[in-house]
């Protein structure tokens, strides 16, 4: 039987939704029992949120002042200390998970699977490669612990109403001091989080300046949407890095994605493959974004967007 450990992701006392998506992925493995581990300075409020996720049997906490920030070199040995109780260790394919999980795998002497989008059985998984141009089925050896990151956009969050037991895990390992947290400059603000928003409006190079990009924020606010950007828009300084959508940015799956002045390069499209409905507004009828858009409008964005906003 599979015993799966999921590493909780959290910030400022709030559990990240990607953790419930990992639970949903784990529950695809028949007969699996699912535990969540919370590493934090003060795990209690986060553990309570984790215990409420349906399908979780037990939440284990590792409290330590050194766990205040998710530093891979500090978290990894603590996870390894309890890993022998499990057949699988999962983390989300977020920047926290991508940073941490390979370090855990290497300490355990095993390979790591990145971005799993489907679990066919306990040791067979699907994942995208070449910017999503191909999907490969990968088999992990049966006799080894499976360490993987879960592509959050491929799974709906597991529901609430759970009532898992919460207990402290006794972990006594020496933690390194060679890596020190300095600070975090958070972008975002009050808008819905890009990775969980129901609607996302993204702007591309066509906006032409940070000032003009405000049109995208206004449009998004009108739709109560999160805001994304193409890499060209981020590189040009129109939008902050945490808004980049795509192969090297965020992979998202909103119900509605509105691409404004974005050409639709493969590296961008790989980030929105799982969106429910894609709307494209682009003045070039030949732009590749129209090959994937459910609804396309060939128009100058500076005319079309204000017109849409006025009509809403």
């Amino acid at each position: 039987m599979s015993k799966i450990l999921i590493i909780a992701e959290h910030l400022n006392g709030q559990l990240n939704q990607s953790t419930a998506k990992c639970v949903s992925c784990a529950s695809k493995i028949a007969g699996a029992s699912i535990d969540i581990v919370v590493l934090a300075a003060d795990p209690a409020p986060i553990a309570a949120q984790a215990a409420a996720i349906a399908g979780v049997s037990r939440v284990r906490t590792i409290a330590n002042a050194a766990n205040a920030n998710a530093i891979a070199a500090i978290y990894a040995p603590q996870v390894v200390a309890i890993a022998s109780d499990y057949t699988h260790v999962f983390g989300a394919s977020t920047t926290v998970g991508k940073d941490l999980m390979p370090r855990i795998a290497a300490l355990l002497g095993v390979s790591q699977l990145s971005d799993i989008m489907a679990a066919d059985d306990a040791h067979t998984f699907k994942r995208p490669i070449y910017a999503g141009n191909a999907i490969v089925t990968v088999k992990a050896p049966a006799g080894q612990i499976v360490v993987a990151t879960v592509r959050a956009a491929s799974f709906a969050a597991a529901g609430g109403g759970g009532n898992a037991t919460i207990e402290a895990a006794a972990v006594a390992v020496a933690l390194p001091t060679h890596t020190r947290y300095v600070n975090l400059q958070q972008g975002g603000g009050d808008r819905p989080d890009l990775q969980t928003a129901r609607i996302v409006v993204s702007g591309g190079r066509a906006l032409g300046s940070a000032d003009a990009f405000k049109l995208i924020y206004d449009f998004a606010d009108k739709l109560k949407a999160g805001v994304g950007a193409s890499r060209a828009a981020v590189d040009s300084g129109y939008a902050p890095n945490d808004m980049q959508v795509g192969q090297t940015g965020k992979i998202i799956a909103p119900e509605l994605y509105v691409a404004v002045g974005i050409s639709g390069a493969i590296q961008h499209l790989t980030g929105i493959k799982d969106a429910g409905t894609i709307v494209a507004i682009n003045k070039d009828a030949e732009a590749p974004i129209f090959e994937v858009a459910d609804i396309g409008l060939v128009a100058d964005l500076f005319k079309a967007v204000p017109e849409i906003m006025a009509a809403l």
Partner: protein
Amino acid sequence: MKILVGLKRVVDYTVRVQVKPDGSGVAIDGVKMSINPFDEIALEEALRLREAGKATEVIVVSIGQQTSMQQIDTGLAMGANRGILVKTDKPIQPLTAARVLAKLVEKEQPGLVILGKQAIDDDNSQTAQMLAALIDRPQATFASKVEVDGNVARVTREVDVGLETLEVDLPAVISVDLRLNTPRFIKLPDIMKAKAKPRETLELASLGVESGDHLAATHYAPPAKRQKGVVVKDVPELIGALKAKGLL
């Protein structure tokens, strides 16, 4: 201080890779190959650190077939001091790559190892983190700014919620994101000058590295295709279509 930089040979990012009809792999015979774009950025950063007097030598490493010597040639033309090709005819997985790099770290004792945050073929994003674990040193992944001051590096990382800054003691492993720098262009005289630079070839089999190739790819498939949609003629029609889908 020495800096070790990894240069992976990958299918050029402009190539639209196709899955073979029998599902046995992706068709990459004869397509354009390049240095992984992230690795060019890694090398550029190493060269800038050397030019700023923070490092003395930049060594580029590629693990792959003899053809990967082309990427080492490019790295030397960009300005690296010397190159090491670790030869193997079999594609290797990140754990093996990390173990090979760990061997080279043991031999060369670099103060920094700079790698790409992900290779654009397999998109794994693992090697730097695994290497750091194996040599029990700090990792600073997804770097968009690197400042070296004596035995400490201050690294700004592009994370989901914004920009995080870490301070790490050297030796350390850094993986770079796209906005760290813009790699320099190679000029013809650089290519000529690079011809005389030292290139070493090591057989992977001779390094005594235990294989970490535990995963088996059993099938390749093209991604699910999205249905081609409709093009609406104006804004009212767009709003109508969104309302019809219950999205507005």
